[in-house]
């Protein structure tokens, strides 16, 4: 089982609903966030191109954060979801430094926090909160090993990219282009 997410950059309008849904679902402390929206403008006026991306942890297969964690608090759980065991984390910051996507942050309680792909919802057969709430339905979630999952189907049909694949992290967050 390999969970993955695909975000359609052609459908995303950058409303930040995914960010608020995540904050509410996961009780993320005020001012912090586990996902965020990036707006990329390319070119010179009048030839401009716009790309909107809802970003979060890439749940890398070759996760540098898991590799560098000195206590084993960062680990890859079932389905390839990268998680943090709060009571093993010492808050050394190594994983935050090691993440090329800057996807982790220090929770005000001291441990490191990040996106969990809402695994508590996924276990019950639901989609992560960000995916479920998206008003343009621009996000797809599912198991890459299952050819009939939403994410497998859309990745087969559409062209996609991952962020900084040259970092060798094998990310599981795809962007449809």
């Amino acid at each position: 089982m390999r969970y993955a997410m695909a975000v359609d950059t052609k459908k995303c309008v950058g409303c930040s609903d995914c960010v608020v849904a995540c904050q509410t679902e996961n009780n993320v402390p005020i001012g912090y966030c586990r996902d965020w929206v990036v707006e990329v403008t390319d070119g010179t006026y009048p030839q401009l191109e716009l790309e909107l991306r809802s970003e979060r942890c890439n749940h890398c297969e070759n996760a540098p954060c898991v590799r560098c964690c000195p206590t084993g608090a960062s680990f890859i759980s079932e389905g390839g979801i990268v998680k943090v065991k709060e009571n093993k984390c010492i808050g050394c910051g190594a994983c935050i430094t090691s993440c090329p996507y800057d996807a982790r942050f220090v929770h005000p309680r001291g441990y490191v926090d990040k996106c969990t792909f809402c695994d508590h919802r996924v276990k019950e057969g639901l989609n992560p909160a960000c995916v479920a709430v998206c008003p343009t339905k621009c996000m797809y979630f599912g198991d890459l090993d299952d050819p009939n999952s939403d994410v497998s189907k859309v990745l087969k049909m559409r062209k996609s990219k991952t962020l900084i694949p040259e970092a060798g992290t094998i990310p599981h967050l795809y962007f449809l282009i």
Partner: protein
Amino acid sequence: MREEIIVSGRSNPLIDPHLEIWEWQIPSYLFLGGLAAGILFFAGLYTIMKKEKEYKTAVAVAPLITPFLLALGLFFLFLDLKHKLYFWQLYTTIKLESPMSWGAWVLMIITPLSILWGAMHLKTVFPRWDWKYPLIEEILDFFGKYKMQMAWLMTIMSVILGIYTGILLSAFNARPLWNTSILGPLFLTSGLSTGAAAIILMSKSHAERLTFAKIDLMLIAIEIFLIVHMFMGFRASTQVQIEASKLFLGGEFTTIFWVFVMGFGLVLPAILEVFELQKIKVPHQIAPVLVLAGGLVFRFIMVHAGQISRWLY
């Protein structure tokens, strides 16, 4: 032109607008760890070479401060932790792919070793020292029989400690400025150089000072070579590392690096040490103080600049 902005108002402290998770604690520790490694290396080396008499400062006097250097460094590391009460989790795991994990274990070995070494040499430095408890005398006598083995262990462990301070940073693929295998040898050389400088500062013997001035001169030459080599590597590498090197070649760290690290921290003390070897009178404290200050500034700059450097997407 390409402009990238986060439009959802992300403001995770310590990460936005750019990463600042490691502040003064980590570079201070890297400096203290490197300095202690340098001192212990020479103490071990000259014991193995059976030159304890000629190099009394290196073998007996300077190591006395290493337990304090390491304890202070460990305290700084503790201050850096954001989830402090769980620090003991470091010692429930051995994770070989995490340099921080094996660094923690190396410290666990070398810190008691430095305390033991200091205790064994206390009477050499202070002849009237009295331990008061016979048990301590017995323990020290017992370890005294294995002094040579301890010297070997200490020399090897100090090299690992010195090189680990660099490997810790170079293992981060996400920070292009650190992601070069030169960093391990570079930090080791710098650590040995600061160790030699500390010995010169403490030594009362002119002959010993001259030997360490020669050693330090050689280490500074190696360090300059490694720094130049590091930038050559960056310039010849991918765009991310070219951008990282620009922080030092025209960017915000250019002046502080080339003036305070390269100029006052390496070139100037090297010139002063050449003067000393040529028997030109210069106060012998200036060069080692400059080397120590340069080593400290170097670590601060590397840790801060490294956290600014990142992949571009």
